[in-house]
């Protein structure tokens, strides 16, 4: 049954992925300048540029180039960088762990804090706590993340000199070093998530508190705290999971900004560098890779949701 859901979802994703790849191909073609210029420098003559272009196959018609790229990509070959000639797959492979770690840490920590804050607000039931919380979440949701990142760099790195402002130490090299480099980027990326999750969780919990089953729980003589923690929180977390799923796109685009801001060797930075250098094969590879990752993560969230929620579990096993 789950297999059928997965297959159906993946089949639906095919036209989307094709569309994304065609679109990026065309858009990249419209960009002024090219990789040859980046390699040869601004003083290159048109003749020299044409020679390099021909080596790269860039003089062939757009459609032929796309077809060539697609058949290669379907065999798992995303080509190689026009500049470094390193394979696109290995470039992405090196960058992915960085991006993944930042996103994961940001998301997990944001969720933990959101649950704590929302629980606090619902249990305390104080209008001032509510007001403060809605101010914080409003700020967190509406302020652009890089603003918060710059603030963090200015205060924590420049002023206090507690954590490095830029750079990355991989987990395989040093745990504390890795921790020191991941904190600020993850905080920058996570603050918006935290604000959004807190607001949604608190709102949904207050809504759940008005449900009939809560009256039943009260009629049983359960203390309010148990009702909030055991009954209401549990049911509101299902809502939160779907919100996390919907928000993955925003998280990925946020990661690009954060990686540039903190100069992290992640996929986002790789993408931006490749765009400025007109390294079209790399850009194309990254865009398709991210699109696939997006589809897969979304599917994962949905599967997780249906595995956890008994109501859905029934629905999928019935039909």
């Amino acid at each position: 049954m789950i297999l059928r859901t997965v297959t159906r979802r993946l089949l639906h994703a095919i036209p989307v992925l094709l569309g994304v790849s065609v679109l990026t191909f065309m858009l990249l073609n419209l960009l002024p300048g090219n990789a040859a210029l980046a390699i040869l420098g601004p003083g290159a003559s048109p003749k020299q540029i044409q020679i390099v272009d021909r080596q790269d196959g860039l003089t062939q018609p757009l459609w032929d180039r796309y077809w060539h790229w697609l058949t290669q990509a379907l065999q798992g070959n995303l080509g190689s960088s026009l500049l470094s000639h390193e394979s696109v797959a290995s470039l992405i492979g090196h960058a992915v762990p960085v991006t993944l770690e930042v996103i994961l840490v940001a998301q997990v920590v944001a969720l933990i804090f959101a649950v704590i804050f929302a629980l606090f607000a619902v249990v305390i039931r104080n209008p001032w706590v509510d007001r403060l919380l809605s101010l914080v979440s409003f700020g967190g949701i509406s302020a652009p993340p890089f603003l918060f990142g710059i603030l963090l760099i200015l205060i924590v790195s420049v002023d206090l000199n507690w954590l490095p402002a830029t750079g990355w130490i991989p987990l395989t090299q040093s745990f504390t070093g890795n921790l020191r480099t991941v904190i600020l980027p993850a905080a920058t990326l996570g603050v918006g998530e935290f604000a959004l999750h807190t607001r949604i969780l608190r709102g949904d919990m207050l809504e759940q508190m008005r449900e009939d089953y809560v009256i039943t729980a009260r009629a049983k003589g359960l203390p309010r705290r148990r009702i909030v923690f055991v009954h209401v929180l549990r049911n509101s977390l299902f809502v939160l999971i779907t919100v996390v799923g919907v928000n993955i796109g925003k998280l990925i685009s946020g990661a690009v900004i954060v990686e540039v801001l903190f100069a992290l060797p992640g996929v986002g930075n790789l993408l931006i560098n490749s765009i400025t250098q007109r390294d079209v094969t790399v850009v194309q590879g990254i865009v398709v890779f991210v699109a696939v990752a997006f589809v897969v993560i979304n599917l994962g969230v949905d599967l997780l949701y249906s595995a956890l929620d008994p109501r859905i579990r029934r629905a999928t096993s019935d039909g």
Partner: protein
Amino acid sequence: MVTSTEGGIVSTINSVAMEHSLIVERLSVSFKSGAGDVHAVNDVSLRVTPGKTLGIVGESGSGKSVTVRAVMGLLGHSATVTGSACLDGEELVGMPEDQLRRRRGIKMAMVFQDPMSSLNPTMRIGSQVAEAVRQHRKVGRREAWSEAVALLRSVRVPDPERRARDYPHQLSGGMRQRVMIAMALSARPSVLFADEPTTALDVTTQAQILTLLDDLKQRYGMGVVLITHDLGIAARHTDDLAVMYAGRVVESAPTKTLIGAIRMPYTQALMDAIPRIDAPSHSPLASIEGSPPDPSKPILGCAFAPRCPRVGDRCTTTPLLAEGEPGHRWACWYPLGVDA
């Protein structure tokens, strides 16, 4: 029965306490709202006897649910409750929430109208019953679970060991209501409030649930308050009746007496609105013409006057509930079958 005067007083108090487990006296409930206060319940007095069923009958909005929720202390902060509700000798009105909470489930329990929304959809029904067990007695998880299974068996859920592991949506409406009853019975309360427990069920299941409640009431000697808007159900399954209209009790008596000699025109209208047994189970309810008064507006005279076929001159002043015949009270200037 008693000889000395002193002993007489004591024994009278005792016999009152023995006779009734719950005594509600002049209970009123109003809700604060933007457009004036809503007076949902006015001066309601009720008595519940162990081992007997008190029926509260009335149209939608007559204040039945608010009355019993006020007794249980389940109304929100916007409700103001005055009067008295004495359960096993303890005053519940004004009791601090924490103490009230310790009496919920143990001394008084409740079964609601819609057993689907009244159960937590994401929790196994066995856990929900076991949770009630553990709330009232210090027992381990496994013991609570087997107790829950036993409770499910006692309300005649077939194959309770397996059913306990189900989620609410996997059960039929009737089974869900049995689960609610099992949960309510977990601590053997003195009073069980059943707020329209069969309205959401089909006719056959209705009868089964009501019979089950009758059996349990007898077996455990608990007092049951059965809320319904079907006077037919009330006639078959209650010992005493209170008819409510616009937040007031307008007629009350032992069920046999009341059904045998309806005095209040509103009760008669309810009688005429009883759904026919042979009608399809989900056909719209026959109803009384007109609609009840808006509880946020003051009422002058008898609240039923605009809809009453017997309305007369005196009806512009409010009729008070008074004993017209032994044990039979009504609030009407021109009662049926009584020559004025």
